[in-house]
């Protein structure tokens, strides 16, 4: 057992104790204990938390972790290693760091087990590279009949096909299942190397929830439709008033107003602990752009900042339920009634 105590002169109020215990022939148990002032734990903003996460003790531990991983042998790699490898492949880089392609090259050079696997299976490196680098276009192509016959070109095709399936599937799980069904050789490969599927799931999840222009456009379209829907509703209300059916118009207007009020109430309940975020959400609700923000957050799987009462998926569902219950159903009903009354 070895014990390392890290103490930094610049941050004397932060201490980190790292304990590494060998529990098996090829297995270590690592425990990390952080001692930090209470004020740091009370920090609620995302930026402050990020500042802690990239502080020196954390970076050092991440570095140690990566070195351990680089030295793992292929024979001893299990499902947990797959998760770690996936995390390494999908780790976000800052502007100071290298671009994705060079980071991938570094990954294949430093990681001994992966280098060995890519030597034994020529298709493996192009497969992972094309997945991580988000290459999509490419035909299905013919596959070899055994793993040994798969070439680098096959790996490229397999990766591109995986990305296309990921694009069409509901989740990364669906994409992986379809991909394995289409390419049974990959089932054989995953049975030989238990780390492969967990790694694929993690990389797939990261790609599925990545921020893209497509998702931004989809959210903007959602907002445009919501706004257009409200405009046509207001036109219908105005039409009622013009035709001397002010009572029905007033009832419809009440439903639209009640829906908006309840949505504002819901936003207040969810975001009342963070005033700047609350103001932003209120503005988005009043301008009918909130559905777009909700959709974008769900599509990109944004994590809660900590002050919210519920996760983004539940927030979107509650928001939509209110919209459907208080606005969409009554307005649809009255619009239909208007047509019936004119016959």
């Amino acid at each position: 057992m070895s014990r390392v105590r890290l103490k930094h002169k610049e941050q004397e109020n932060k201490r980190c104790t790292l304990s590494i215990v060998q529990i098996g022939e090829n297995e270590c148990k690592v425990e990390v204990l952080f001692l930090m002032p209470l004020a740091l734990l009370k920090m609620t903003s995302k930026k402050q938390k990020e500042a802690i996460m990239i502080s020196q003790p954390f970076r050092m531990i991440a570095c140690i972790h990566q070195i351990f991983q680089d030295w793992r042998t292929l024979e001893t790699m299990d499902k947990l290693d797959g998760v770690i490898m996936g995390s390494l492949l999908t780790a976000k880089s800052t502007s100071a760091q290298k671009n994705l392609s060079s980071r991938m090259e570094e990954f294949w050079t430093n990681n001994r087990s992966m280098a060995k696997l890519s030597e034994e299976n020529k298709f493996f490196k192009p497969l992972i590279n094309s997945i991580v680098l988000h290459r999509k276009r490419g035909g299905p192509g013919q596959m070899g009949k055994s793993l040994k016959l798969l070439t680098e070109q096959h790996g490229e095709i397999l990766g591109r096909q995986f990305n296309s399936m990921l694009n069409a599937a509901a989740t990364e799980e669906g994409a992986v299942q379809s991909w394995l069904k289409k390419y049974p050789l990959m089932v054989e490969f995953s049975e030989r190397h238990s780390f492969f599927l967990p790694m694929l799931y993690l990389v797939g999840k990261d790609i599925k929830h990545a921020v893209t222009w497509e998702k931004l456009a989809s959210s903007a379209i959602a907002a445009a439709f919501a706004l257009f829907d409200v405009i046509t509703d207001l036109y219908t209300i105005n039409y009622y008033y013009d035709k001397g059916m002010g009572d029905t118009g007033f009832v419809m207007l009440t439903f639209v107003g009640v829906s908006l009020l309840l949505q504002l109430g819901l936003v207040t309940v969810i975001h009342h602990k963070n005033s700047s975020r609350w103001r932003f959400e209120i503005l988005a609700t009043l301008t009918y752009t909130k559905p777009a923000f909700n959709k974008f957050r769900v599509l990109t799987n944004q994590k809660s900042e900590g002050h919210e009462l519920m996760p983004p998926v539940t927030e979107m569902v509650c928001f939509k339920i209110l919209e459907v219950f208080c606005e969409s159903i009554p307005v649809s009903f009255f619009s239909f009634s208007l047509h019936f009354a004119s016959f």
Partner: protein
Amino acid sequence: MNWLAQCTVIQIMSILSSTNVDNILLLSVVLSAGMTSECVTYMTYIKDISEEGRRLGKLFYGFVPLSGFRLIMVRISMYMLSFCQLIGKCFGMSILYNLGGPVLVLQVLGGEMLAYLLYKVVRKDLVYSVSLKSKHLIIVFTLLQRISSKIVADFTGMLHCRHPYELGGSTGC
């Protein structure tokens, strides 16, 4: 049910043959119904495929296939189900509205709701198990939830409201 179907056909024919229909109003109706269906379909889809939903509610969530042609078919079917249910229900309610005014509509909706709540009381399945301290709050929450889910399910056919403990099972019959 046959008379209602015939009335619907007659009314649709009237809409199609009428020269007085305001195009923007017609667009408003279609857009409202379309947006509602889209809302309900997307809500059901997202909640059903969510990792949390599938992990915590295995019996309830997870009916949507995760990939392939079946996924597309299920999404289209859900959308069509919601759209047709909304149009059908609105037609029915509009006929009642034109026959007896808002009072008749409220009587029918209220009667349906009362029957549903009585059914739940008889089945000893009315009150939700929620972690609220006050009994009054639990009853208010239960009533709001039951009424809103009944209305949403009746008008939009939302599949997650058709759970055996909600509006599904024998309640659906």
